């Protein structure tokens, strides 16, 4: 017997969000690691991993294909493209025996949705109460927050481009809310 084992993110971007001023797209498969590192070991771990673990909550570091965001005093999330991140988990696991840290693979827990275009911030503000004016939430900011009923991870890639990450089963709600706003906004 042979089986076709296909990957499936379980959510589709509604048509109304596929074109126009603000466009939403699925971010595709990523490697996602939750890193917890005690502050004393932060620089050493970063060096071993080959990218920066920013010290400030909400800050990110970016390298080609790898983004690392500081989410809490000892917490980082690494989001990497498949080709860059494939070996990261194993590498980090090995470090864990040496340093005061933990690493957990959460690659498949989240769905990433990019929202790009003029007014992208308004689309985020449909469900997220944060002040997203550029001065308050500059490019490169990343934080957990909420999108109405669901928790999200919000990352500003550019002035008019965000990535919203949420747990897999929340994704239809998130894109549903975006689509409802777009359908309505198109008419008002």
């Amino acid at each position, binding site marked *: *017997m042979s*089986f*076709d*084992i*296909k*990957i*499936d*993110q*379980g959510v589709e971007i509604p048509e109304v969000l596929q074109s126009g001023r603000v466009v939403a797209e699925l971010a595709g*498969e990523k490697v996602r690691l*939750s890193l*917890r590192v*005690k502050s004393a070991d932060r620089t050493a771990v970063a060096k071993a991993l080959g990218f920066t673990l920013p010290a400030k909550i909400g800050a990110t570091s970016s390298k080609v294909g790898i983004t690392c965001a500081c989410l809490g005093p*000892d917490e980082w999330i690494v989001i990497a493209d498949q080709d860059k991140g494939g070996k990261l988990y194993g590498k980090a696991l090995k470090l*864990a025996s040496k340093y*005061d840290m*933990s*690493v*957990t*693979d*959460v*690659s*498949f*827990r*989240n769905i990433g949705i990019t929202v790009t275009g003029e007014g992208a911030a*308004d689309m985020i*503000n*449909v*469900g*997220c*109460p*944060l*002040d*997203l*004016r550029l001065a*308050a939430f500059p490019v490169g900011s990343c934080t957990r927050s909420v999108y*109405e*009923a*669901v928790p999200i991870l919000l990352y500003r890639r550019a002035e008019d481009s965000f990535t919203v990450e949420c*747990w*897999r*089963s*929340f994704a*239809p*709600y998130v894109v*549903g*809310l975006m689509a*409802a*706003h777009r*359908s*309505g*906004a198109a*008419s*008002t």
Partner: protein
Amino acid sequence: MSEFRRPGRGLVDYDSPVKFSFDGKTYDGFEGDTVASALLASGVHLMGRSFKYHRPRGPVGAGSEEPNALITVTRGKGRMTPNLRATTMEIYAGKETASQNRYPGLGFDAGAFNNVFSAFFPAGFYNKTFMWPKSFWDKVYEPFIRKMAGLGPAPTEVDPDNYGSVYATCDVLIVGSGPAGLAAALAASKKDQDVILVDENPQLGGSLISSPEVTIDGLSAADWRAKTLKTLEKSGNVRLMPRTTAIGYYHDNFVALAERHTDHLPMVEPGRIRETLHRIRAGEVILAQGAIERPLVFDGNDRPGVMLASAAQTYLNIYGVAVGKELVVFTSHDSAYNAAFELAGANVRIASIIDARREVHAHLIEEAERRGIDVHIGMVVSGTKGKKRISEVEIYESVHNDRKRIKCDALLMCGGWTPSLHLWSHSKGSIKWDSQTGVYLPDKANENCVCIGASNGDFGVKAALDAGSKAGGGRKTYKTEEPDFGVGEVFDHLPSYKKSSKTKAFVDFQNDVTDKDIKLAVREGFHSIEHVKRYTTNGMATDQGKTSNLNALEIASKALGKDAPQVGLTTFRPPYTPTTFGALCGYRTDDLFEVTRKTAIDPWAEGQGAVFEPVGVWRRAWYFPQDGEDMHAAVARECKVTRDSLGIFDASTLGKIEVVGPDASKFMNLMYTNPWSKLGVGACRYGLMLGENGYIYDDGVVGRIAEDRFHVTTTTGGAPRVYRHMEDYLQTEFPELDVWLTSTTEQWSVIALNGPNARKLIAPFVEGIDLSPEAFPHMAVREGSIFGIPTRLFRVSFSGELGFEINIPSHFGLAVWKALFEAGQEYNITPYGTETMHVLRAEKGFIIVGQDTDGTVTPQDAGMNWIVSKKKKDFVGKRSLQRSDLVAEGRKQLIGLLTDDPKVVLEEGAQIVADPNQPIPMDMLGHVTSSYWSESLGKSVAMALVKDGFNLMGQTLHIPMAGGVVHKATVVKPVFYDPNGERLNVL
């Protein structure tokens, strides 16, 4: 054109005539009219009936403060809106409107007989009667009272419209676009602030629109307004929001706005948003809500045609409508003179100005006389006549007892001005009484907020503009030419020669509260304004007292002989004006109301025709009926196939938490009742978690993946609170532990395979794991791959059969499930849902936390003492378990029940007694927690929490049902199937 129109005046578009209907009759108006302005232009003042006495009423105001002219607007199926104000409803072609609270019609209303007997319905009358005979209350009085309820009709169809909801942040939020608001916006805009300027009206500009005599910096008010709006539009940092009401002011400058998009449009495309809720966080809030004119309280002040002087100005200047041909003005404030002069200038005859004051500025009288208007100083209106519209007023002077009648077709009144402090009051800003003007004014702010212009008691255009500039961070002083706003006098009582029993002077028009009602309330001991309000219902109508609260306060304080502040002021409560439920829902209706979480495998179950049940925020497959099976048949089949061969179950919703770090096992020891230190890598253990109060909190199987890594599972509904519980203890109580928690619920899809063929099914597809019973015993976990996908494979069982739980990355969950199902055809594999899962576990006596236990059950009660470590010094809940009542005799304990008649399946929740013949109230021993038909055993099985249950083994208990049937059942140990667990070891 109607004789009431004044072409050339107003903002209506005279080139765009609009026909609409009111009570089935067609009327003409123009684009830009409201229902009220267009009806007034057609000579119609009668627009509604009051709540209690059904008295005929016309509009008192011209805006959202209107208490009388309430109408129902209909626009197709599901789009019926009751209780709208005719004064704010913009017309469009074909708009259908109707009056309310009348039967059979507005002109003749049978309910008006209440008016005839109004003497018997004073404030609070219902407290005093309808009590005898007692039986009449339920059957006669109450149904009658309930039938009289309500103003407009209740909706009966689903609203097809959509609504929106968004957040926004700004530096400055300005509420009100009159001179103060506009000047504030200009100044803030120049300072590079992000500004939002809102106004509830369709046109921005507030009083500037109806101030034709005013000039600002050399421009007419209209030109200055136009220029300013253009500047603001172009500024790039000011967002202008007309038709938007600031409805409520909440903590830390959080203000809710309701924006109306479509109610004024003739055509609305499907899907268009009707209203949007904007939730604004503002750095600073500038409140420039203006002031509302106060009615005067005199006999007959509610007749159609009696209205506020400023309303008549608004009708003239915004809508080009004269509210009558021959007007009388009754005032106690200078401002009404300006209104009279403006109307006179628009070719409306002003028969007289009646001024209740004894002293009035000479120049006002001169100005009036210059226009040929009689002024009666020191006189009051003592009565009015006219059926559906006023036709005559009687005026009266108390010293000489002069009386005189004057014909008119409208009476304008002005009792002064009430600053609008609604939002200020929502924000918990304090207020102070200004005895000179008889009003409350803003005092100390509680938020970063200022209240300016008329709402701060600063009347006049210049005062408003300058205050606006300052509030917006500017320093501009404006030059204006404007008539002096003037001063007024507040009367707590207008003289009358009539016996009070013969008069009806209304304070709250909509709720039919008269000055007599307020005095009666005071007489009966209601001495606080809150009491007066509640006893009389003054200020509780749909206008929330905008025109009535201060008059009521004056009358009550006079009756009490106290100063107004000692009597108090009723609190303003949100919303500022009634707000559509739909807007408060915004987008969050139907699928967006609450999340429905679905697993990766859910689409497959749906495709198979599964019946689902909601479990917390998840939806789970309940059972998989085939060929018209009902639930009972489907579950019996699913159970049988699983026990005989193989069942497949989606367990993905189980919560999962990865507990990682050098102190992981120490932490587990503290969070669970049982010990974890010695659990080997690759082994699993069932864990029981308590709350600090000692009651069972959650449970689940935990696998040790590495020395420093546990894969913890929780109940489906418990996942979020277990995670919180763990984080809370870790961060607050045990911060010294080096351990970290990560929720991994959705990282994994979990496919449970149960049945004697489970191992056979997976064996060909699993790599990297020795599946032999010796190498992979029950309660073990291994990492490897299945179909080439990495897996954490658990050998566990919640059914008593040989079982595996295959954890695979969730994006592969569906594909792996399908592959297993296809391969499983060889074994007649059946998918099963939560119901079969429950039956299988109940046959084994496994508990479901939350069903067989609730928040009052200890491990001992559940018969699970075996899992409570006696050696550990501490774990959460340990100390509580020793409390006297938790170790006392007679606690409810979890036991099994077998019904005497094996076909009887007890009702879950049914109560258990020892003696079914005892009288009610019965001494109940406990209740049935789980009860199922067991196809495998050919009889029903049940679990129950029963007082002293462990000591009742073998005894017969009774379960009395409604209707007299009593079931009998025997107490047994709650393990019904394969008590020795042999089936786990099938090869």
